[in-house]
């Protein structure tokens, strides 16, 4: 297939998504729309972690920290001054927090950028660490962010957090950002930089020997990843309309990691599919935590059961299907074309959407 056809197909795919959202906006109930929104946000988060871990091989457990930064920055910018007056009941807000104000799109971007800045700053010292040390150090970073959010009362309103954050993040914003994330990461990975990142993942020492500036490349990937984690956090804040430090516990990172591992480390298609599947599954599993009525007989709900099933699923995936749903394979129009008998060699292209 030539370039033109692929572009048309991609545009069509995005248009189809747009139509779907338009339809969903009009005909689905609030609960289903909320699930769709969560799907979009989870896909953004999974894609960003997959870039860091699946494609560059940096085991980062700091996603909750970047999300917290994005969420707080965005919320501070979109909360109205009146709301801030009522929210900050202990000691009032710092002057710059009180004055900060921006439209939603700027606020989201700012959330991503500040998260990226933090990613850049902590990446400097931390990315020299390998594997599990990096994991525990980034986990430490996320914990420090959370502790700071609990204590910096004049900026974050401490343990109370924010309530009544304007709910701007509708389907259009969430899926719009989702497409942007996918586009940027696909373009990045298709470029020569992408090849270098994969080389670092597969063998860092060899990449270094080939003259790759490993540290700079890792820092780039980590910064881009934290940018989109910040965007995801910002959207989540506006979607849920309340945030507090307890929301950004390690569990949040765990959920994203689960999606990435299940989808397949190093497969964007996998992250998208697992993002959809696991979000739906997680919502569906809420059933086991709520009381069930069979006639007059009430089966009490079991709190915590959802995470039991979920963590068990992760163990099973890692034990029996370590490559996840997709392994490292990607969706591509060529493969679809050849399946339908439209010519084009199968497997001649990887990583579909931007091709």
């Amino acid at each position: 297939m030539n370039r033109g056809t692929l572009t048309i197909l991609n545009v069509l795919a995005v248009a189809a998504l747009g139509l779907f959202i338009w339809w969903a906006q009009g005909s689905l109930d609030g609960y289903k729309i909320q699930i769709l929104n969560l799907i979009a946000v989870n896909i953004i988060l999974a894609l960003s972690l997959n870039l860091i871990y699946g494609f560059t091989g940096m085991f980062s457990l700091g996603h909750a920290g970047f999300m917290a930064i994005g969420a707080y920055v965005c919320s501070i910018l979109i909360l109205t001054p009146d709301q801030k007056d009522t929210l900050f009941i202990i000691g009032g807000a710092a002057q710059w927090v009180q004055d900060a104000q921006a439209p939603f799109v700027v606020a989201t971007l700012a959330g991503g950028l500040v998260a990226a800045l933090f990613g850049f700053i902590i990446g400097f010292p931390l990315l020299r660490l390998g594997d599990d040390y990096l994991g525990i150090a980034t986990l430490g970073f996320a914990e420090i962010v959370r502790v700071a959010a609990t204590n910096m009362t004049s900026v974050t309103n401490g343990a109370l957090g924010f309530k009544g954050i304007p709910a701007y993040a509708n389907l259009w914003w969430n899926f719009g950002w989702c497409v942007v994330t996918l586009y940027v990461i696909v373009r990045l990975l298709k470029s020569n930089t992408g090849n270098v990142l994969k080389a670092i993942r597969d063998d860092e020492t060899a990449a270094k020997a080939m003259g790759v500036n490993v540290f700079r490349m890792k820092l780039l990937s980590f910064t881009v990843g934290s940018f989109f984690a910040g965007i995801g956090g910002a959207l989540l804040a506006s979607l849920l309309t309340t945030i507090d430090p307890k929301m950004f516990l390690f569990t949040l990172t765990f959920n994203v990691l689960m999606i990435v591992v299940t989808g397949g480390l190093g497969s964007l298609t996998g992250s998208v599919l697992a993002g959809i599947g696991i979000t739906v599954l997680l919502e569906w599993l809420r059933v086991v935590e709520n009381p069930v009525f069979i006639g007059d007989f009430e089966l009490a709900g079991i709190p915590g059961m959802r995470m039991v099933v979920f963590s068990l699923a992760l163990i099973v995936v890692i034990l029996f299907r370590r490559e996840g749903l997709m392994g490292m394979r990607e969706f591509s129009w060529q493969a679809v074309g050849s399946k339908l008998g439209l010519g084009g060699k199968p497997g001649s292209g990887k990583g579909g959407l931007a091709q």
Partner: protein
Amino acid sequence: MTPEMFIQHALNSLTLGSLYALIAIGYTMVYGILRLINFAHSEIFMLGAYFVFWGVSLFSLPWPLAVAASIVFTAGLGIMVDRIAYRPLRDAPRISALISSIGVSFFLQNVAIVFFQAIPRGVYRPEWMEQPWIVGAVRILPITLFVPVLSVLFMLGLLYIVYRTKTGLGMRAISKDIETSYLMGVNVNRVIAITFGIGSGLAAASGIMWALRYPQIQPMMGTIPGFKAFIAAVFGGIGSIQGAVVGGVVLGFIEIMTVAFFPDLAGYRDAFAFILLIGVLLFKPTGLFGARVEDKV
């Protein structure tokens, strides 16, 4: 600050530090041998405390018997976790086992929430532990001295096992080179199982004493002490038992003394350990007692 207050704080630091040390030993032993951060360790710690609670309240066992049963149970549990979740991944990339251990950690924690409920519970304390000794203005609970003494005893026992027994020889061999150890006829799986057993038993002991010192237990109680103990192990030099003990005690002192001298920082207490961790990793990644490991192609 009066000298009496300082002594009081020092004693508290020593107790807290010894508790960290006991947990840290489990992390350091497993990491030394398998290069695996066993995230499930903090849940073993929590379950150790719970088993005593249930032993005393549900089966009305005498307290010492409940403690013994709990340690045996958790040791068995540790071995089971290794058998089910880590052993099949021995040949997989290192991070796979780490992800598996994160999964096990969440699994055990949520099983505890399901079966024990998330509400905090008060624990039974033997009476002799409730009687403080008053020395001048310093008030000493028996547990305050009990814990450090016990930690030192455990450490000596472990050093004996690691350096004077055949199993210990096996452990040291595996930590150097797991494949060669296989070839030299070391029963690798058995030695690793023993390591998990010992580490988990110590975590249980620590969990039990933690519950005596801070007498409330809940399913999430292991997470933060677990992270901190791991940091203590890294600080001391991961893989080194003496290092874990020294690291634990130092971390205990840092936490309590910083808050004692700068009360304004009390809210940031949980962040100290992580700041220490990042500092250690940057300036001396091998820790105080660690051996240097080179990256090989």
